[in-house]
């Protein structure tokens, strides 16, 4: 059987070119060459796979020219058409880890070629890319190279052969936030007793199911100078331009609306209405200021209490809208508001 073809990515240091002083070297393609840790990989692959090319790039160069260098490397990898792309291992080297994650994820995503990397769990590249590409957990320094190569090689061969990848703890990759079943050695009750014994003795133990993140976002600093601040209005109360031109659904909304407030000083029943299906719409339809206080904010703008009311407002319907959608709306609206130079937001809900 023909050997699987592997392309390997490493930085200037592991290529033996130099340390920080050489971190600005551009990407180089070394066809048919096996360099640095690649030798150990090749040995580990035996006659099942081989490295057909090595790509070397300086860490600074990569991170300062991400888009260009990514395109360049993707071009090479596309032509080489390997069965697998391996980056690193990067251990705890931050910029190297980010580069490995970026390029491996790009190869997987954009070329549809199997890709993987390896690094230490606290490498910033790990958090950024562990849900996008297989990242094998390694020690924090190159002293752990032998172990890293061993586990990465084992994973690579399994992956290449199309064998079922097990749970993260079985196959040594970082958990991708996806629950995967596997059989433990001990039954559940025994594991529970062992865990309790550790907990009783105040020894460290690892829960098998970490409770979902009770994700909190730290509050942003307060507005210092309200008299010059741009304030934007966002509502989940479904206030839309009369006739609901964007067809915001009355519940389980799949989109949000962006509407202009230019020249609007007071909302009235001829121009604005609510699309919200979760409450009695009579009051909001009669006077939408009751949900979206444009009239008052215009007054305050005139009086100089606030710098200005942002010229656009955003609306969606909170009623039955899925968490994922609501999150997506928030992120997109946030992006647009920041781009428009807004300083703070008043979000109204019914």
């Amino acid at each position: 059987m023909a050997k699987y073809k592997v392309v390997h990515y490493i930085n200037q240091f592991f290529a033996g070119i130099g340390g920080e002083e050489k971190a600005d070297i551009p990407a180089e393609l070394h066809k048919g060459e096996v360099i640095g840790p690649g030798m150990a990989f090749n040995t580990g692959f035996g006659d099942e796979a081989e490295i057909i090319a090595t790509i070397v790039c300086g860490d600074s160069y990569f991170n300062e020219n991400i888009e260009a260098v990514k395109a360049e490397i993707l071009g090479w990898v596309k032509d080489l058409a390997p069965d697998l792309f391996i980056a690193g291992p990067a251990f705890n080297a931050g910029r190297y880890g980010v580069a490995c994650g970026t390029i491996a994820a790009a190869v997987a995503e954009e070329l549809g070629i199997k890709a993987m990397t390896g690094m230490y769990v606290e490498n910033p590249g790990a958090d950024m890319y562990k849900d996008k590409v297989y990242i094998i957990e390694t020690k924090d320094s190159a002293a752990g190279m032998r172990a890293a190569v061993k586990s990465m090689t084992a994973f690579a061969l399994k992956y290449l052969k199309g064998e079922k990848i097990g749970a993260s703890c079985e196959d040594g990759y970082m958990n991708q936030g996806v629950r995967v079943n596997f059989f433990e050695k001990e039954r559940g009750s025994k594991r529970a007793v062992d865990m309790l014994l550790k907990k009783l003795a105040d020894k460290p133990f690892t829960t098998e199911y970490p409770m979902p993140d009770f994700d909190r976002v730290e509050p942003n600093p307060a507005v210092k100078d309200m008299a010059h601040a741009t304030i934007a209005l966002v509502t989940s109360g479904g206030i839309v331009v009369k006739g609901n031109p964007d067809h915001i659904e009355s519940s389980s909304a799949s989109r949000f609306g962006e509407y202009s407030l230019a020249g609007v000083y007071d909302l009235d029943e001829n121009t604005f209405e609510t699309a919200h299906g979760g409450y009695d719409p009579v009051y909001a339809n009669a006077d939408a200021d009751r949900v979206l206080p444009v009239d008052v904010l215009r007054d305050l703008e005139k009086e100089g209490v606030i710098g200005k009311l942002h010229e656009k407002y955003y609306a969606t319907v909170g009623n039955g809208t899925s968490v994922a959608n609501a999150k997506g709306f928030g992120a997109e609206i946030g992006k647009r508001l920041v781009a428009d130079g807004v300083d703070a937001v008043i979000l109204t809900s019914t």
Partner: protein
Amino acid sequence: MRLEIGKINITDIRFAEESKIESGVLYVNPEDLKPVVLEDDKIKDVCFDIAKPGESVRITPVKDVIEPRVKVEGKGGVFPGWVSKVDTVGSGKTLALKGMALVTAGKIVGFQEGVIDMTGPGAAYTPFSKTLNLVMVCEPVEGLKQHDYEAAVRKAGFRVAAKIGELARGIEPDDTCVYETLGIKEGMEKYPDLPRVGYVSMLQTQGLLHDTYVYGVDAKKIIPTIISPTETMDGAIVSGNCVSACDKNPTYIHQNNPVIEDLFAQHGKTINFVCQIITNENVYLADKERSSNMTAKLCRMLDLDGIILTQEGFGNPDTDLIMNCKKIEAEGVKTVIVTDEYAGRDGKSQSLADADVAADAVVTGGNANEVIILPKLDKVIGTLDYINKIAGASDKTLREDGTLEVELQVITAATNEMGFGTLSAR
């Protein structure tokens, strides 16, 4: 309380003229068992079958699984409140037929579920692919209401299990294990330096097809209480739960409660296993508040240092699980919970319907939504008529080539929440 369990290893089950146990072989004459079933006039007919590990056999829909046992010394008899009077069990000597199980099967409602495959990939997920199974399929009289039918099949299972258990009376066990719990003061004096550990088991008690009984009492009516774990071994807790095959606790798993066994294994060595606390999983929210208040209070009054908390089912019980965990932890009692997950077919959704930071030590029985393809097997005991209707099945479940595409949910005890199996997830 001190209970000896004498284990008689059953190596084969055969139909024969005379019902008996000889050299580890259980000989059964179905005609001896039929009258035991048919004494309930709600059951029209019954048939028996045998399924052995490795055979190309699928049993479905499974209602309950029971281990035949007989009480030969000490107060009371097995399945108190059903087959025997309500004397307190859990002391003396009980004989158990190991390596075999009585499986009750048959349709009770149209979406009835529970699959036991004796071979193939599905077999790995159910503990009952490793037991010799005597299967009992009941047919109800015309027009019988669902809950009457459930009760009839449930009770018939206990009677038959007891009848088979009786065959063991007088037989020398292959192995004997002794389990002993001490009085509160006694235990403290004997093991002054060992942490005091309890086991809190939540029993499924939501209503029709979702019930559990303790000494014959519907457990949704109880206030949480303490029992000796040895009582559980004598069948003080039995299952009336038919839905959610993967994470319901069949009577067999109550009798062989793995948490109890594994806590006993440490009893007197690293811990002092004080007692079992039983509580319920009612649908009424105020009942949940009351019950979890009570369990937490019991843990405190018993001066427990730690507990293991197990649940049964999905959704509603997740709230009880979290309430119990939160309140018990708040009493300073260290808690480990055993559960399973519904993380979606892709494993990306939130696993439990409820959550709290206090639940920091969790053992999981795996993701019940994971999909598995079950091959066509040669023989079906029960019926495949309803396989499309069961939990975790879909309209494309029964595929053209005869294979089944299902979620693990349909497999009996696949993700057991008392930690009976080794399946887990990360």
